[in-house]
């Protein structure tokens, strides 16, 4: 019902419904959202400027740290851009390892999301279960790379660590366990009333709006549009590894859950295929420090959607310009559309519906790191301080 007048309700930057800082100014008429204005930038670290000040090798580590959840997507995008500028190609085995890591990452990211979505609708039992099972993937990452989160697998010219024969049965065992659990969760999100009552018909994004507002990834695919960089613009070994692009046409939060759950099952199949068909050979080629003049547009399907990097080199060891556009920024206009006309109570789950990752999105401007005390350490000072220990 309409009350004939509206009030403005700010949400964030610090708010229990947001896992990272972002600000949304809602205009509400009674319980209905009539307008929403996003304000982002609370996580800005000046990454794009920082890219220009570091060498190509240092930038691998910077790209890794754009995001904590989809770190591999960023380094894949970065390394394949620089490889193209250098005119080298990653060896076939490295391209398969990139697929395996990317798909494992997709599973952990989507599982993380299913947990958060369950939490946002007050279904904490599911949240606990999914996150427990997600640990399987993180343990596999630890076995392969030594790290649970920043796996640091990619380097310019290939990958840094091999997947040895002894690891393969362990990965497969983990995936078998996950497959069973994921099938169960797929059933839960389709039949459990707790979820259906909160997710079905909520946060609707019609296919036409999704295209007009340039939505990406699972958000776009849940509006019935078949669009996946892995299939449309294949990179790494995606032209050889078979997988299905999942779409659903419910256009609501429920469809977004289904798309992500089914995508995880597809990822498991793709990893199984890649493990069985991995070519033998070296995992990386040596590359020069200096990158010849040129420019390149590089795309990757990150867990949250299309990730695009633009690199421009000037013939030195540092890039002239490096642009990163993460999927979350691309989904914000679509998110605002979904929130309009919805209830205030549905804001958290609709917001979570696009799987927002603010640290990916906010990477460009400058934040004063000094707080009120005026000191700043350079890399050299840090090295001097800690290298001796």
């Amino acid at each position: 019902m309409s009350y004939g007048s509206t009030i403005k309700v700010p949400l964030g930057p610090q708010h229990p419904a947001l896992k990272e800082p972002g600000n949304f100014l809602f205009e509400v008429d009674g319980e209905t959202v009539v307008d929403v204005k996003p304000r982002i930038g609370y996580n800005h670290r000046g990454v794009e400027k920082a890219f220009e000040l570091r060498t190509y090798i240092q930038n691998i580590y910077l790209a890794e740290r754009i995001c904590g959840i989809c770190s591999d997507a960023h380094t894949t995008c970065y390394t394949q851009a620089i490889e193209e500028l250098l005119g080298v190609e990653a060896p076939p085995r490295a391209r398969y390892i990139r697929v395996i890591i990317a798909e494992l990452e997709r599973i952990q990211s989507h599982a993380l999301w299913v947990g958060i979505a369950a939490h946002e609708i007050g279904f904490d039992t599911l949240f606990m279960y999914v996150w427990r099972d997600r640990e399987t993937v993180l343990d596999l990452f630890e076995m392969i790379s030594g790290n649970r989160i920043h796996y640091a697998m990619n380097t310019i010219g290939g990958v840094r660590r091999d997947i040895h024969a002894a690891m393969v049965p362990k990965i497969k065992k983990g995936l078998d366990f996950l497959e069973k659990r994921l099938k169960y969760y797929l059933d839960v999100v389709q039949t459990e009333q707790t979820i259906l009552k909160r997710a079905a018909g909520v946060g609707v994004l019609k296919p036409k709006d999704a295209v007009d507002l340039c939505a990406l990834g699972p958000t776009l695919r849940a509006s019935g549009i078949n669009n996946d960089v892995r299939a449309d613009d294949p990179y790494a070994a995606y032209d050889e590894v078979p997988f299905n692009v999942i779409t659903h046409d419910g256009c609501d939060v429920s469809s977004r859950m289904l798309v992500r759950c089914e995508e995880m099952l597809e990822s498991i199949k793709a990893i199984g295929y890649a493990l069985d068909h991995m070519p033998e050979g070296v995992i990386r080629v040596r590359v020069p420090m200096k990158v010849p003049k040129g420019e390149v547009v590089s795309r990757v399907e990150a867990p949250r959607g299309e990730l695009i990097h633009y690199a421009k080199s000037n013939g030195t060891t540092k890039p002239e310009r490096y642009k990163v556009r993460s999927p979350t920024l691309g989904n914000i206009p679509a998110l605002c559309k979904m929130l309009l006309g919805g209830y205030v109570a549905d804001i958290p789950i609709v917001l979570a519906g696009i799987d927002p990752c603010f640290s990916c999105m906010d990477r460009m401007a400058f934040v004063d790191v000094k707080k009120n005390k005026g000191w700043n350490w350079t890399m050299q000072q840090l090295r001097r301080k800690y290298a001796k220990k």
Partner: protein
Amino acid sequence: MEKENEIVKKLKNFLKENLVRTTVPKERRIFVYIKKDALKDAVKYLVKDLEFKHLSTITGVDLGGKIEVIYHMAYKGSIVLSIRLTVSEKNPSVPTITDLIPGAVLYEREVHDLFGVNFEGHPDLSPLVLPEGWPQGVYPLRKEHKLEHLREMTSKK
């Protein structure tokens, strides 16, 4: 590369002298250099007739004295066509394309924040990514701003 060359040919026929040059560095990548005044027509043609409905992002590049604005558009998700134009650093202004592609709204604001490009006709160019109290007229991704300079500026209270 047939599809790519066909798209380039169609664009050449449509834009005529407004098209400066094109490059097709590899499969599924096209770069098109156009004159500033032709932007609206070119984008309209790409969206309506050539089905480049998706705008991936807008990139700004400081060329020294000039700013280049690059629109990365995608054809049904596969071919990326980067349409690019340059504007002077003193008076950088480009017509908005938000009426043709509503999804451009935040990308234009982002380029406005960081490079100071004025998108004429944009509904709201208020700061999107820069912190509150950021000095007016300072566009951090321009090359004239060194890191130390920006640090000094942001630490002043």
